[in-house]
């Protein structure tokens, strides 16, 4: 349809003589390709190439002069810290996403419950943690967790609970980085789930109520199935972002105490930039790829399915 129209336009304007090159330049696909070429260049040069280049980098020695095959990986496998980082990355990402989803879900329901005219205000207030740059808000948390002046410990002391070593003890530090991540990410889930809740047709609830469904049944058979897609996609998105998280851990604990809170990104930075061993750092960050790829496949499948439904 469009092509036919364009053909017509070209036929009328093509009365004047034109060289073959200019004709090619006038063709729709050529124009389109030129319009998209900065994008292609950017993605190719600064995303695709470095991604592939890191595969090559991972096979070099520290001074990046000699090909050492997989010895960077075998070296990593022998280090206890590496397995600790793998474990911590998984704990961090899975726990954080789980709690973000749960809190987001609960808060979305509360916001959905209150009268519509007040919702905007509450939604606006509750999204603030997501809007503040993570580096800045993590600084505030770092100050709230300060070993000697912690404002949380002051409150706890009022109730007679001893000072909590928020970032000093390995387990508390793990808890703290997850807490900050949940604080930043839960509002995003809340917004997504709220949008999903609003898209559930009211008639479904009415029908369920007529059938005598109780609250749990309505939640289980109406709300959750209707929200399933959004819940899954949001969680997968967040899993990718959380798994690759850098800011929070870097600022709050810098990986400490004794490397107990390092995740892939912060450890790769530590090894690659601060330790000067870029190939080893690149090898570490490559371990993020499998989980990212898995999540990406699921997200893409969802998009394609929805695309097919739409058309």
């Amino acid at each position, binding site marked *: 349809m*469009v092509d036919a*129209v364009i053909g017509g*336009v070209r036929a009328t304007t093509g009365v004047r003589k034109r060289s073959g090159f200019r004709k090619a330049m006038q063709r*729709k*696909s050529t*124009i389109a*390709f030129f319009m*998209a070429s900065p*994008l292609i260049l*950017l*993605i190719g040069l*600064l*995303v695709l190439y*470095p*991604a592939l*280049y*890191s595969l090559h*980098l991972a096979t070099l020695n520290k001074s990046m002069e000699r090909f050492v095959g997989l010895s960077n990986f075998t070296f990593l496998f022998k280090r206890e810290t590496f397995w600790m980082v793998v474990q911590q990355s998984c704990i961090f990402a899975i726990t954080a996403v789980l709690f973000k989803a749960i*809190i987001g879900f609960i808060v979305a329901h509360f916001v959905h*419950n*209150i009268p519509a005219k007040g919702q905007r205000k509450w*939604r*606006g*207030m*509750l*999204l*603030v*943690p997501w*809007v*503040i*740059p993570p*580096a*800045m*808000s993590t*600084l*505030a948390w770092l*100050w709230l967790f*300060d070993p000697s*002046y912690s*404002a949380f410990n002051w409150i706890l002391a009022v109730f007679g609970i001893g000072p909590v070593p928020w970032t000093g003890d390995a387990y508390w530090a793990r808890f703290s980085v997850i807490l900050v991540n949940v*604080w930043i990410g839960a509002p995003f889930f809340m917004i*997504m789930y709220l949008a999903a809740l609003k898209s559930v047709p009211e008639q479904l609830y009415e029908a369920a109520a007529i059938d005598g469904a109780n*609250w*749990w049944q309505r939640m289980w058979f109406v709300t959750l199935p209707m929200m399933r897609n959004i819940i899954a*996609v*949001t969680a997968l998105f967040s899993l990718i*972002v959380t*798994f690759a*998280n*850098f*800011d929070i851990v*870097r600022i709050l604990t810098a990986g400490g105490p004794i490397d107990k809170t390092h995740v*892939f*990104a912060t450890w790769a930075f530590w090894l690659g*930039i601060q330790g000067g061993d*870029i190939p080893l*750092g*690149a090898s570490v960050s490559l371990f*993020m790829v499998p989980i990212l790829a898995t999540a990406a496949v699921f997200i893409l499948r969802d*998009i394609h399915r929805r695309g097919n439904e739409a058309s």
Partner: protein
Amino acid sequence: MSAVTAGAIDQAARRPKYGSMSRDRRWALRWSYFFLVLFAIFFLMPPIYMFITSLKTSAEISAETNPWWVYHPTLSNYIELLTAPSYLMFFRNSAIVSVFVVTITMLISVPAAFALSRMKFWGSATLATGVFLTYLIPETLLFLPLFKMFAQFNELTGIELINRWWVLLFLYPTLTVPFCTWIMIGYFASIPKELDEAALMDGANYRQILTRVFIPVALPGLIAATIFAFTVSWAQFLYPLAFTTSIDQLVLPVGIITTLNKGDVFNWGQIMTGALLGAAPPLIIYAFLMDYYIAGLTAGATKG
């Protein structure tokens, strides 16, 4: 607990005719507000505490008094920071980088989104999927190879890319362009085909269709994408931390973290003031354009 309250509300909403239900509903509403207040306290506590600390002197911060209250409010932290050349430089660097990145992002992603959503060419469908996939590639995977690439580029051409603030103008678009292109594809695809066909019939060329039809119609999407690009480039922390080191090249997040905690003594009053002022631009934009902000947020995942 939440289940019980929400259940009560739903029941009340479904069957509002019963008298006792309306009382239940009132109670359920109160519980909803109660928990919303609790969550709001949790969500707003760190920024509020930032503000409280920013009003204190160093002496009061290290005193044994209630940390949640300001006994001697002072603006000295603000005055000191806003007259400190280094902080103003960080702010200026951040502003310049963000404005340029937003411009570059829009110049790249809007035409590309137009081409990908309306003018099919060889490989355009694959490219659209590829754009989305690059959005999923985190910067933490790319910074080391990029670092090495820049070092090699320096060896080849003699142009130093590391520790130059303007190199961020090349790096940030890798984070903003894929997402902005993706949501613009979504917005452009929702414009009815009849609109551009009519414009073509009237003899408009593609540039005119883009600037006269598509951009005005998809303006909400454009604003959402702009806000997204700005927030991302303002908040980005890893790339400036890895690629810039000397004080005059730093942007705000890295500047605050590397310069304000000098020595063993953290000057928390100033750090909190700096962080609060640094968080202000995105917060102000959010306060005024909240609906666009949220539209962009949800469009990314629902359309994609």
